[in-house]
């Protein structure tokens, strides 16, 4: 007997690093590292957190229930690749188009 798999809703978070010349991969490594420190590998897997390569710039995706936790990790990042930095959240939306 087949069972219907529940489709989890995604949220897309657009970031603006400060200073602006930070690389996307470096920012992603910092966020992922801090998220894993806070919520572990299982949390990382459960949250569906990933980096999207879009024309809109730096966009992270996660499942909707994990938005506060992902935002908390982004907020706590204070250095990227050894440089002092802060990550500003520009917009959170349910679609990639919505974060433009």
């Amino acid at each position: 007997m087949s069972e219907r798999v529940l489709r989890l809703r995604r949220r897309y978070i657009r970031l603006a690093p400060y200073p602006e010349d930070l690389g996307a991969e470096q920012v992603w490594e910092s966020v992922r590292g801090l998220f894993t420190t806070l919520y572990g590998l299982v949390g990382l897997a459960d949250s569906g957190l990933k980096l999207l390569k879009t024309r809109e710039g730096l966009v992270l995706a996660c499942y909707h229930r994990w938005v506060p936790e992902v935002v908390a990790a982004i907020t706590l990042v204070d250095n990227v690749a050894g440089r002092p930095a802060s990550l500003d959240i520009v917009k959170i939306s349910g679609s990639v188009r919505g974060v433009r």
Partner: protein
Amino acid sequence: MTRDYTDLWVSPDPEILKRLRALGYSACGLELGYGEALPQPFARAAAELGISAVVKRIYRAGSRQEILEKLRGRPGNIILSVMPLSREALMVALRDERVDTVIAHPEMAEVDRNVLEVYQNPLEISLAAVRESLKDFRRLKNIVRLCQTCIAEEKPLVISSGARNIYELRKPRQMAYLLSALAGYDNPWDEAVSTTPYTVVRRCIGFV
């Protein structure tokens, strides 16, 4: 309705003021030492940017007597915050009307039901303290427990940056989300960056 976002704890740096304005804050508390006044060029810069800047003094106190001595003759136009080093000091600071905020730190006494009974003044959690607690699991546990208790009991909470440079500042909604994430709530706790701290600033401004 537009909220008045407030960062109650920053260092007096003109660059910090500009960055606060860019992030959407309309008021801030500037930490200065005992006897120091807000420099005039700084006050003018804050007024030009449209930010209400108020002097903030932080006192560390280990006993009831210390707190009462520090509160004697306090000016009304400054923010007075107490960092309690003992349970007795915590209870006195939370109850005394002359204290504006109580600075929470990872080594602070636990907020149990006896403390909750006298809890009137807002507890202030700084981003800097949360970041420091990431290095020590016991400290992080204390901070998380504090957030959970205060939000579950709907007690007044403030979250501030404790920023010493522009890279330590964050958008107000991000700070609100941080508090909610620590407490295990879904929605951002906006009161902690708007209504609660702005009430403190408004009282100080009204006093001038």
